[in-house]
C-alpha cells in the first residue's frame, strides 16, 4: 500500500517536473529536458524524452550556446566497460517515444562556455530529419538527490 502511494507521489513529482522544460516540434513532444552541474571548460550531457504522435522521424542535430559543440552520443556498457560513441541520429518511431538518459543516449555538450549550476536553465535547439526544429529549456538538476539512472 505504501509502495503504491510512493508510486503515485513519484508520478505526481514527475508530472510537475515535466511541466516546465517541454516543447513541441511538429508531432514530437520534448519532455523533461535536464542536465547536471558541470564546470566551465568541461563537458556536459543533456537528457530528455521524445514522444512522437506523428510519423517516424529522426533527431539529427542539437545545438546550444552554452557549449563549443553538441553531439548526439550513446553510452553502451559491455562486460562492465562503458563506452561513449558519437552517433549520427536517434530514430523516433511513429507513435513511439525515446528517452535519452544516463548510460544510454545523450546530447554531449563539449567544452562548456560557463559553469552549469543546479537550478540554472539554458536552451537547446533540436533538429529532426524532417526539417522540423525547435528550442526547449534545459533545467540543470542538482546532485542531491541524484537523478534516476
Amino acid at each position: 500500500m505504501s509502495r503504491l502511494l510512493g508510486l503515485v507521489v513519484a508520478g505526481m513529482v514527475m508530472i510537475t517536473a515535466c511541466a516546465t522544460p517541454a516543447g513541441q516540434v511538429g508531432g514530437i513532444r520534448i519532455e523533461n529536458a535536464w542536465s547536471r552541474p558541470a564546470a566551465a571548460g568541461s563537458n556536459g550531457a543533456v537528457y530528455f524524452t521524445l514522444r512522437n504522435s506523428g510519423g517516424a522521424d529522426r533527431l539529427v542535430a542539437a545545438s546550444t550556446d552554452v557549449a563549443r559543440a553538441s553531439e548526439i552520443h550513446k553510452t553502451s556498457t559491455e562486460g562492465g566497460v562503458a563506452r561513449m560513441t558519437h552517433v549520427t541520429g536517434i530514430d523516433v518511431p511513429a507513435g513511439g517515444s525515446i528517452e535519452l538518459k544516463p548510460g544510454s543516449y545523450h546530447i554531449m555538450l563539449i567544452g562548456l562556455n560557463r559553469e552549469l549550476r543546479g537550478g540554472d536553465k539554458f536552451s537547446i535547439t533540436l533538429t529532426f530529419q524532417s526539417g522540423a526544429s525547435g528550442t526547449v529549456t534545459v533545467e540543470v538538476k542538482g546532485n542531491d538527490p541524484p537523478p534516476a539512472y
Partner: protein
Amino acid sequence: MKRLVLLSVASTLIFAAVVTAAVAVMLTTRPKPVTASLMANALPAADFSLRDTEGRSVTLSSLRGKPVLLTFGYTSCPDVCPVTLVKLAQAKAQLGPRGKDLQVLFITVDPDRDRPDVVRSYLAQYDPAFLGLIPTPEELEEVAKTYHVVYEKQPGSEAAGYTMAHTAATLVIDREGRVRMLFWPEMSPDEMASDLQTVLGL
C-alpha cells in the same frame, strides 16, 4: 482483586513489549539481500602508491582501517562517471556518521588530460572528501592490470577529441584491506548504503 487485574495487565504488556523487541531484532538482523556483485573469496586488495591531486603520495595500505571505495574514471566523462560519483556521495551521506571514515578514491584513466586541479574541482562537486589520484601512464597500466580494469582511448570527433572507454565498477575494500564487492552505476544509493551495512558492517 483490583491489584490482581492490574498485575495481569502489566505482565501482558511486558510480554507484548518483549515479543515486539524480539521481532524487531529478528527483522534487523536477518541478512538483507545484497545488490552488489559479491566477491566469493575476499582477496587482499593489491597495494599501490599514487600521487593525489595535492601531489602527496597515497598508498592503499596506509588507508587500512578505513573502508575504501575505489573507482576509475575521467573528468571529461559527462555521462557515466557523474552517475557513479553522485551515487557514492549519496550512499556515504545516507550512512551518516557510520559513513564518515569511508574513503572514496578516484583514479583517472585519462592522465594525459586530467590535471590535478581539474580532478580536484571535479570531485568536489560530489564530495570534497573524495580523493583524486593521478597516475603516470605506466602506473595506470599497472594498477588497471592489477584490478582487472579496462581502459581504452576511443577516437572521437574533432570537437570532442578522444573519449575513454573504461570499466565502470567501484571496488569495495573493507577495513582489513580485502576486496569484498563491486558496485555498478545501475545500483541506487540506497542499495549501495544497504550493502555497505550488510557486507562491511557499517
